[in-house]
């Protein structure tokens, strides 16, 4: 489903100053991968390479059948719709309600029929437990609720892959657990999830696989439990 083939990434003009160096790994469908590492280790860059927000300097990334070295410009949005993205700072549209935020994402793919949009939004907001707050604006919600709304937005296309960049980074432990519970439910439903985080304890407790990055290199790639195993 996701394959990195000897990927190097550098933001510098001078080559050799690698943010990611010789990354070679495959993520199978249904895995729940926690990517650990200090700030600057390359976690976010790894996620950005999956959505092709960044392109590899060397090597190739293949996601859901799209290869970074062959993909056409017009195909990039299709690839991105197969990857729901959740950000640390939620990035909801401030002047739209929660249901409008989620609906906007669906309309972007050309689904404009009101009944279809309403039903899809209701389904997603029920799944993240926010249906009752659908008419609230982001600033009227707590951090955890905003993050759940952001997950709802990421799920509206029913993507097979979900990428979460520090999804609990701005949340206290309890609300962080609530958000993780939503991610676990998605994992149980078969979604492939990659979570970039500093939180080693949660990784140890929840992940099926733990990947540790240090200065752009994979220093540990640990399969903690076979996927499909129930996590409590």
């Amino acid at each position, binding site marked *: 489903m996701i394959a990195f083939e000897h990927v190097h990434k550098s933001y510098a003009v001078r080559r050799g100053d690698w943010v990611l160096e010789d990354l070679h790994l495959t993520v199978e469908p249904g895995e729940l991968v926690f990517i650990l590492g200090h700030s600057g280790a390359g976690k976010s860059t790894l996620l950005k390479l999956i*959505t092709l927000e960044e392109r590899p300097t060397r090597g190739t990334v293949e996601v859901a059948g799209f290869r970074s070295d062959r993909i056409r410009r017009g195909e990039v949005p299709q690839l*991105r719709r197969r990857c729901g993205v959740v950000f640390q700072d939620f990035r909801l549209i401030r002047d739209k309600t929660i249901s409008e935020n989620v609906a906007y994402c669906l309309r*972007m793919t050309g689904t404009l029929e009101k009944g279809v949009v309403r039903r899809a939004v209701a389904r997603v907001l029920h799944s993240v437990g926010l249906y009752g707050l659908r008419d609230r604006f982001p600033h009227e919600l707590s951090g955890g609720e905003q993050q759940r709304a952001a997950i709802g937005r990421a799920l509206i296309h029913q993507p097979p892959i979900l990428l979460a960049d520090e999804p609990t980074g701005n949340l206290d432990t309890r609300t962080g657990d609530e958000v993780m519970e939503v991610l676990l439910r998605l994992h149980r439903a078969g979604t492939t999830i990659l979570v970039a985080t500093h939180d080693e304890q949660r990784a140890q407790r929840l992940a099926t696989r733990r990947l540790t990055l240090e200065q752009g290199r994979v220093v540990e790639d640990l399969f903690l439990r076979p996927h499909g195993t129930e996590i409590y």
Partner: protein
Amino acid sequence: MRALAFFVQEGWSSLRRNLAASLAAVTALAAVLFVLLLLLLISHNILFLAARLEARKGLSVFLDPGLPPERVEELRRHFTGFREVASLRFVSRAAALADVEADLGTSRIEEILGGNPLPDTFLIEPAPGSADAAALERLAGEIGAYDGVEDVVYGRRWVEALDQGLRVVSQANGLTAGLAILAIILVLGNTLRLLVLMREEQLGVMKVIGATDAFLRAPFITAGALLCMLAAGAALICLYAGFLATRDWLAGVRFLPVHWLAFFFLGVGFVGLAGSWLTVQATLHHLARRGDSGRA
């Protein structure tokens, strides 16, 4: 159609969210368009007058005294065959004298002057498209070269002045339209750039979650077109109010006809769409490049 309605709704909410900037843009655009409409109104009235004057353009062809009727008939056939001649009317010297006597209110001219001094005359109305000064001069030269034609007279100076005046009006219209287009693009450009920059973060998120470039551009382009339409409407209302207020002092002034207004709105809409497209395209491109260089 649903997509259009969605983008118009998005464009409209984008304008409402940035009400101050939108109002400033509509005011500036309306001022530019008001000047353009005013000039169109003046042009329309000048062209209307010019059309009435055009009808009075014509040649008077004076024939040699004592020209036999066969030659007069021959000349009539020749002149009628000219492509530049729309119609030709023969006025005999007797009929001309009768006209003059009627105008002066006397029947003693022939007696006072010792004869009828007026020649037989052809009055020629030029065909449309052959009534400008150059064409009339050419026609007068050709007709004047015929045997039996004593002189050809036409109001050369006023025809030239009229043509010159119409050229000035047309150039002024072109220049004003050009300046108006430039001003529209500048005002729209600044306003839309502001709207895009205010939503920069949101655009970045939309892109990452799979929005196409067209989807990102469309709400801003419709916002630009909406701004132009609102400004055009405001300018038209102001002009019509001014026209109604001054109608008593400007007797005979006619308001712009519906088809001119339709062209005006179509033109403004087109310039609005094209200007918005260019601006949004350039701004998004700039943001994408800035993002790339920022990371480098």
